[in-house]
């Protein structure tokens, strides 16, 4: 057995194992719109999300639910499901991460949550109030799943709204590029970071709001 052949095999074995670690990919797709809510004094009080699930997951989620009309679900009929959803989301910090002038901000439990079902897809609406309203020069809001089980995409049209923001505030949205490009670009960095705990960060949707 030549050394070269051995090296070849070892390389193959290593690659297979690396590939085995790469088995995950999103199983749920969410198209999101997010609104930043402002108080009259110009401080930010919270975030209002509307997350539309893909049709495969939507079908899964409504499986077996009772509805008066077949194939249609009212907000009331979906009430218990919405509640379970927001309760479950707590563990994942609602996939919503805010920083005000670089300082991490925390959210309270969601309010005003409900699901609606339209054109065979579910949309989860909920509002996340900030623990303490903030009035930063710059607010950064990121929406993503670090485990990349859920693929978050901001909606094509009007992805981000600033509700009642003071005049002069500028919003910028950085979308993740598609998985291929991002994964390739961040390849080296990921390996250097060791256990790529923040893999999903590459897929983050980053909303930056600068106010005068």
């Amino acid at each position, binding site marked *: *057995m030549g*050394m070269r052949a*051995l*090296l070849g*095999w*070892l390389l*193959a*074995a*290593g690659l*297979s*194992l*690396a*590939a*085995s*670690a*790469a*088995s*995950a*990919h*999103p*199983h*749920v*797709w969410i198209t999101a719109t997010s609104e930043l809510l402002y108080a009259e004094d110009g401080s930010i009080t919270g975030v209002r999300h509307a997350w539309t*699930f*893909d*049709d*495969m*997951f939507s*079908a*899964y*989620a*409504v*499986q*077996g*639910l009772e509805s008066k009309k077949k194939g249609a679900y009212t907000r009331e009929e979906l009430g218990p*499901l919405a509640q*379970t*959803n927001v309760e*479950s989301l*707590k*563990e*994942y910090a609602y996939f919503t991460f805010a920083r005000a002038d670089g300082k991490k901000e925390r959210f309270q439990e969601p309010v005003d949550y409900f699901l609606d079902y339209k054109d065979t897809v579910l949309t989860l609406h909920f509002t996340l109030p900030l623990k303490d309203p903030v009035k930063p020069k710059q607010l950064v809001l990121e929406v993503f799943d670090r*485990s*990349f*089980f*859920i*693929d978050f995409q901001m909606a094509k049209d009007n992805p981000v709204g600033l509700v009642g923001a003071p005049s002069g505030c500028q919003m910028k949205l950085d979308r993740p590029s598609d*998985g*291929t490009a991002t*994964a*390739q670009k*961040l*390849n080296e960095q*990921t*390996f250097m970071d060791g*256990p*790529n*705990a923040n*893999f999903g960060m*590459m897929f983050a949707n980053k909303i930056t709001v600068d106010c005068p």
Partner: protein
Amino acid sequence: MIPRLHSRLAHGLLACAAVLLVLSLADAALHDLFAQNPFGGPRPAAEPEAGGIIGWLLAKQSEFYRQMSATIRAAKSDGSAVWTLLAISFAYGIFHAAGPGHGKAVIASYLVANRETARRGIALSFASALMQALVAILIVGISAWALNATAKTMCKAEGTIEIASYALIAAFGLRLVWVKGGAFIRALQTAQPVPAIAGVPHNHDRDHHHHDARVHHDRGHDHHHGHGQAHVHQHHGHDHVHDEHCGHSHGPAPSELAGPGGWRRGFAAILTVGIRPCSGAILVLVFALAQGLFWAGIAATLLMGLGTAITVAAIAVVAVSAKDIAQRLSAARDGGGALFMRGIEFAAAGLVLLFGVGLLFGYIAAERTTCF
């Protein structure tokens, strides 16, 4: 001098490979602890790891998966779309590779720990993938189709099976560790080198004697442990594998060493890996059911399983080959070679245990919130 050097280099490389193996597997296991899905859908198989080719695979996988729902819808009105669905499912299965849990890693570790042949590796891969597909079909068939259960109920059923499967992996790993640990310790005790053969690894004849001696030695151990390998002799010669296994060796091939008890062990591996259904498959099945095309979902799931089996089998073959090479190289060495191999087997057994325990605890941590 040169053979010595080679041998040392080889051992160094193998040690590196072993470390790499442990790290990547442990990494996958650890990640699973954190990977849960809040919406009650099936949980992900493992964590993603980006890379050039891997990133591309990842994207491809998602692409195929996303095409499935549209294709199932299309199949409602256009029967020919079913063929597209089957093709997509098959491709998805291949790309999805690991399928649920750490099937691949567990199978590979098991094969290495048990000195299995590539052929058996392939058989195990296909059997476990088929079982995975069938479990998914059964879960959705019984709970959603027959009982019209909600996603919450299905998820709970899935969760229970998941716990059971992780516990099985842990138990399976524990047993392997027990057995292989014993063999390793005995190898340590008898590791005094046999000087006569040392240092001339390129002499095939001696090589071969040496190898034989070692294999017989192993067999002795197995007898001690009584893993149902007492009937080894009956199986002498029924196998074919000389060429693909030990090259010029006339010693018993691992398939023979495995014996009938080996198949029983193999079944344990199939059950351990196959009992946890494929995450994606459950979603596809429920979706197909909602479209009134449950049968198309079943066909898609089976094709997905076939695709997964091919990938897992390929990895199993690589794992077995890598180990065979290690074995050949270490056989060319003095008494330390056997010890080295027992060490690798012991490490592989440990990995299976590590997986089981890691997955089990990961699951428990997530149990409260995973399901609707």
